């Protein structure tokens, strides 16, 4: 992502923070919040799949860990918003580190399946650990505390969500341009060549996995600022696939692609929510068509011309 695009994103987000709560209805602002959470989620998945080239299908699980941790630490410990968000991110990162240590010895399909299994097992935990997560009844999320003030509406939450998202976008764009980003991509292109130029392949992969889990957890923390309820149903494989679709359609490996994919696909998914069968067919159709005709993503397709 070039500096110019980043500046445009910053201007857009700051402008929306000023204008949207004043002009738009609560529902529109809610969608805005949700889209920004998806941006953070897809940037997280972008780090592990797009940059480091490792398959991870447990993203929704890390997202869920972030949501429950942030909500419970705010509810039980009374932590303020930013601390709760970081707690969610850190616990998710810790789980990501543990899973990474165990499964990053594997490649390709084995890695995909072990992370998939972890994701499904976590959803089962969310659903059955009733004393903590509320189980199938879901969990009411208390209002986030910012500077001692509770955030009670989507409109109040939007500037905060936008601010955190902007920080994340800038960090991920910086990461992409940094030496670490190049190390990630070197590992993606060839582990042997990466090792030959002195990159610690195992540590680099672990770092990508942990960072990705951290961002997913932080996205969960962001979600708790404007949402009042969470149910394990929304933390399954479907959510992982939704985020995967976003980065695949946007263009695997491109920060701008992950960002654009999240916005466009988040909107499509929200618009199609009323007709779940068509939603599934359209997701599936888009995945197949993009893989057939634009395997590097639709945004990179536009950019090259």
């Amino acid at each position: 992502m070039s500096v110019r695009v980043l500046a445009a994103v910053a201007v857009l987000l700051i402008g929306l923070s000023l204008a949207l709560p004043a002009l738009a209805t609560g529902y529109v602002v809610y969608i805005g919040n949700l889209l920004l959470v998806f941006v953070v989620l897809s940037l997280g998945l972008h780090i592990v799949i797009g940059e480091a080239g490792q398959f991870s299908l447990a993203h929704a699980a890390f997202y869920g860990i972030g949501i429950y941790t942030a909500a419970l630490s705010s509810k039980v410990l009374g932590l303020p918003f930013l601390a709760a968000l970081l707690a969610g991110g850190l616990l998710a990162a810790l789980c990501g580190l543990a899973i990474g240590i165990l499964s990053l010895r594997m490649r390709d399909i084995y890695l995909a399946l072990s992370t998939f299994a972890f994701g499904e097992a976590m959803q089962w935990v969310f659903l059955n650990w009733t004393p903590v997560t509320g189980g199938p009844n879901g969990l009411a999320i208390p209002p986030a505390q910012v500077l001692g003030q509770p955030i009670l509406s989507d409109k109040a939450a939007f500037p905060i969500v936008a601010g955190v998202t902007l920080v994340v976008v800038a960090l991920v764009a910086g990461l992409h341009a940094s030496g670490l980003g190049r190390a990630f991509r070197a590992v993606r292109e060839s582990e042997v060549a990466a090792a030959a130029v002195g990159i610690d392949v195992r540590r680099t992969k672990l770092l990508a996995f942990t960072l990705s889990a951290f961002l997913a957890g932080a996205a969960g923390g962001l979600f708790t600022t404007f949402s009042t309820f969470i149910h394990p149903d929304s933390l399954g494989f479907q959510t992982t696939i939704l985020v995967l679709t976003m980065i695949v359609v946007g263009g695997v490996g491109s920060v701008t692609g992950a960002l654009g994919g999240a916005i466009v696909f988040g909107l499509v998914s929200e618009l199609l929510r009323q007709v779940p069968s068509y939603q599934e067919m359209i997701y599936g159709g888009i995945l197949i068509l993009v893989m057939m005709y634009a395997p590097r993503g639709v945004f990179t397709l536009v950019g090259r011309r």
Partner: protein
Amino acid sequence: MNTEIVFLFLQQGIASGLVTGSVYALLALALVIVFRTTDVANFAEGEFYMAAAYLAFFLIALVGLPIWAAAPAMVVGIAVAAGLFQRVVLRRVAAARGVSVNLVIATLGLSYVLKGFVRATGFGDTPRSFPSVVPDGSVTLGQASLSYLDLAILGAALAVMAAFFAVFNLTRTGRAMRAVGMNRRAAQLVGINLGRTERLVWIFAGGISAVAAILIAPKLLMTAEMGGVVTLAFAAAIVGGFASLPGAVVGGFIIGIAENLVGLFVSTRAINVAPFVIIMLVLIFKPQGLFGGRLRVRKV
């Protein structure tokens, strides 16, 4: 729990486990033959199976075919559809950018299309039962009781496996499939038509999934989500080493028996998480599976 009940549960668990396991074994076999020859983990496998059950249901309930005509028609239909998917979609995906991640994502796309399609027909959301051709009744083996349907499932599944193994091991076509799995370029050099062989593998995989569907459908309620059973097939394939055909079959039986024993001894809620725990444990401690042979180091 006294020893007598433990013994009874053990017998029943193993007997029922062999029956459900035979269906998992079929699905795992379909996964493994595709993975071996084309390097694609078929995430649409469960939806092949789901679509097959619904196709049979539509043929019987809406078209009015008798079941003896609907069953083979459905198996052929699904096999042809799987072949078409390979011909039209996967070939194009491989040509556009031939990395296996893209192929896997294309199969994920297909799984969503099939699920959405079945739901859009309006029959997908209410669970439906499927008629059985086998008369009611049961036999007792030791202290375990199995219905005639169970026996028919086990027998038919074993017959299909035997038939496929014969094709795979004894015919020229099967030899071509094995050759492509070992070394694609070398296989092409000795005159094997890669596209045709891969298509045949997909056709076989589709057919095997369809047979699995018609066998187990009378025992289960049909919904658009029934393809979720494929996670058990993935677990079976992983237990067997993911690239080994006999491994997939043995893995299927192990998973089926483990599932039933967990249900009898632990709780039915634990059944849901058991396959994922098995997948993780096997991948962590013995990633090559029971039949994967020694771990191979890939050289550049």
